[in-house]
C-alpha cells in the first residue's frame, strides 16, 4: 500500500492566530480516513492546504506522491474535492454541470454514469435548486468524481442532513471506497466517524490529539462504561456518597440538558467508570446501597465521545 497523502509539520497562521499547529499524518491508499473535531479545530484549513486552495505557513504536504507546492496543478487533476458549502451554477442542468466540470480535466468520467452512481440517474435534466438537501449533497459527491480521481476529499459531507439522507450518503462513500478510491473526510459527528472511517485523526484547536482506528481509540482510553441514572428527585448527599465511593467511578455529573423521551422529567446523572474488571459489579452494588429510586438505568460502552472528552477535556458539540 502506498501513501495517498503525507502531511509533515503543517502550520497555518492567520496573523497572530494559528489555525493549524504542527499537524502531521499519513493517509494510506484505499482507506477512508476521517478528521474529527469541533468547528474551528482547523479541519477545513488542513484540507484546503492539501487541495491547494491555501499555502501553508510551514510544513510539507505531498499528495499522491506529488509535492503540493511545486505540482499543485497535477495534484488538482488527480483528486476530487467536495467543498463544505458548494453550490453550483443555477442555470445549468446536473448533466451540463458535470460535463462542464469534466471539461477542465484531462481524464473525465461520463456524467450519466456518475449520476447513476449517486442515485440521481433520473435527475440529469434537473437544476440544482430543484433537488432536496440530501440529493444536493449526493450531487456534490458526484461532482467530486468527474475526473475519475484516485483520492476524494469530502469536507463535512453530511452536515445538515436528516438521518435517512446521512445513511444514504454513508453507503455512497462506502461504495466509492470499494471502487478503490481513497477517501478523506471531515466530520463532527462521532457516529459517522465510527461507522465510516478505518482510521481517524482527532483534531482540536489546530492540533491532532490522536490518530488510530476507532476501536483502538476507544480501547485506549481510561473510561470503559458510562452509567446513566435517571431519578425522580435530585440525589441527596446521603444517596450520592455511596456512588462516589465506588473505586471505579471517575466522575459523577448531572446532565442538565436532558435528552428527550421518558427521561425528560427525571434528573439525569452520568457516572464514568474506570477500566477495572470489577467496575460494573461495584457500581451496581453502590446503587443498591445508596437506596436511590431509579426511573431509568443505562449502561453504555465507551464511545468516541468519551475519547474526545478524555483527550481534550471538552465535550464535542455541533
Amino acid at each position, binding site marked *: 500500500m502506498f501513501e495517498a497523502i503525507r502531511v509533515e509539520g503543517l502550520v497555518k497562521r492567520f496573523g497572530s492566530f494559528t489555525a493549524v499547529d504542527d499537524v502531521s499524518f499519513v493517509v494510506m491508499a484505499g482507506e477512508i480516513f476521517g478528521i474529527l473535531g469541533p468547528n474551528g479545530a482547523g479541519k477545513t484549513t488542513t484540507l484546503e492546504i492539501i*487541495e*491547494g*486552495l491555501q499555502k501553508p505557513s510551514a510544513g510539507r504536504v505531498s499528495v499522491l506522491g506529488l509535492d503540493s507546492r511545486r505540482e499543485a*496543478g*497535477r495534484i*488538482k*487533476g488527480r483528486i476530487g*474535492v467536495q*467543498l*463544505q*458549502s*458548494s*453550490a*453550483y*451554477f*443555477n*442555470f*445549468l442542468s446536473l448533466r*451540463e454541470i458535470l*460535463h*462542464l*466540470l469534466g*471539461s*477542465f*480535466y*484531462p481524464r473525465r468520467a461520463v456524467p450519466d454514469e456518475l449520476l447513476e452512481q449517486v442515485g440521481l440517474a433520473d435527475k440529469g435534466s434537473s437544476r440544482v435548486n430543484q433537488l432536496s438537501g440530501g440529493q444536493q449533497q449526493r450531487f456534490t459527491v458526484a461532482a467530486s468524481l468527474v475526473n475519475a480521481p484516485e483520492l476524494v476529499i469530502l469536507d463535512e459531507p453530511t452536515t445538515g442532513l436528516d438521518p435517512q439522507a446521512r445513511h444514504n450518503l454513508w453507503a455512497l462513500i462506502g461504495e466509492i471506497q470499494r471502487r478503490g478510491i481513497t477517501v478523506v473526510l471531515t466530520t463532527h459527528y462521532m457516529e459517522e466517524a465510527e461507522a465510516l472511517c478505518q482510521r481517524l485523526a482527532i483534531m482540536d484547536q489546530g492540533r491532532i490529539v490522536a490518530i488510530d482506528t476507532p476501536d483502538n481509540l476507544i480501547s485506549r482510553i481510561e473510561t470503559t462504561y458510562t452509567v446513566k441514572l435517571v431519578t425522580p428527585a435530585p440525589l441527596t448527599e446521603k444517596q450520592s456518597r455511596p456512588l462516589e465511593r465506588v473505586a471505579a467511578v471517575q466522575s459523577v455529573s448531572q446532565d442538565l440538558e436532558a435528552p428527550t423521551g421518558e427521561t425528560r422529567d427525571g434528573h439525569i446523572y452520568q457516572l464514568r467508570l474506570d477500566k477495572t474488571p470489577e467496575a460494573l459489579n461495584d457500581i451496581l452494588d453502590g446503587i443498591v446501597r445508596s437506596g436511590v429510586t431509579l426511573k431509568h438505568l443505562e449502561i453504555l460502552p465507551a464511545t468516541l465521545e468519551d475519547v474526545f472528552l478524555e483527550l481534550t477535556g471538552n465535550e464535542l458539540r455541533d
Partner: protein
Amino acid sequence: MLPLTVANLKMLARNRQTTFWALFFPLVLVVAFGLFDPTSFGSFTLAVIDEAQTPAAGQMTAELEGIPNLRVEAEPGGVQAGRRLVADGALDYLLFIPPGFAAGEVFVPATLVANTQDEGRNQLIEGIVRRISEEVILGEATALPPATLVTERLASRQVSYFDLVLFGLVGMGIMTNAIISIAVRISNYRNLSILKRMLVTPLPIWQFFAAEVMAQLALALVQAVVILAVGVFVFKAQINGNVLYLLPVVLLGSLIFLNIGFIVSAWANSPAAASGIGNAVAFPMMFFAGTFFSTATLPGLLPYVADALPLAPMLAALREIAIYEASLGQVWPELAILAGWVAGTALVAIRVFRFS
C-alpha cells in the same frame, strides 16, 4: 475555455430575467425617444438678414415674429455664416432680404434658405413666407412682381435628435448591463463558493474570467445589434457611417465596464449589494456622460467631469462613426482613451479582486 464560454452563454440565455433587463430598459427608451421627437412639434428657428432696411422689410420681420412655433433668431452675421448654420441643422431657415427689396426701379426678390431635413415643413414655411412677402409688397406697389421670393435648398446631414440619442442608448445599455451583470454574477459565484470550486480544478483561473468576459462581450454585441435594429427599422433612425467600425468601440467600451463590474463585485458583500453599487455607478454616468443631452449644456466645470467618464469617449466615437461617417483613424483619440480605460480598470480589478 470554449466549453465554459458556451456554458456561460447558456446560463445567460436561460437567466431570462437578466437578458430581459439587458434589453428592456434601453428599448423602452428607444421607443420613448422614437415617439417623442422634440423637433417635430414645438419650435423651429428662422433668422432674418435685412439688408434692405425698408419699412416693408421691417414689416415682414414683424409679421414673421407673430407666427406661432416660429422663433426668430438673432442675425447670424452674414449670409455665408447663416447658410452654414442651415446646412448644419443648427438653424432651420434663413431669410435674406436684399437691398432693393420692394423699393427702387428693379424689383429684387427675397431669398429663403432651407435645408433638406423636413420637406413637409419646408413647403409650409415657404407658403407662409411667400404670402407675407406678397402682402408686404402689395402694400407698397400697385402690381405684384413676377417673383417675390426665391427659395434655396441646402442638402443637410439629417441628424435628428433621435439619431444622437439612439447611440447614447447603445452605450448606456452596454454600460449598465456590463457593470451590473458582471458584479452580480461574480458576487453570486463568490457567495455560492463557485469561485472556490473552480480553484480546486486544474482549470487556470484566468480562463474562468476570460470565458465570463467573452460571454458578456457576445451579449453586448447582441444588445448593440438589437437596439440599433429597432432604432433603424422601427423608428427610421439614420446610420450614415460604416456599422462595422462600431465593433471595436463596443468591445473596448464593454471591457471597461466589465472591469468596473469586477471592481464592484470586490466591494460588494452580496449580490444585492453588487446590484445596488452597480446601479449607483451606472446611473449617474448614464446621465452625465451625455446619453440624452449634450454635456456642453452642463453648468460650470461639469462638462469636464462628464468628459472624464469612460462612457463619454465611447459615445463620442459611436456618434462620430455612425452619424458623421468618421473612419477608425479619425476617432483614434477616443479609441486611445478607451484603451487607456481598459488597461487602468483592469489593473484596479486585478488588485482588488477577491475569491472569498
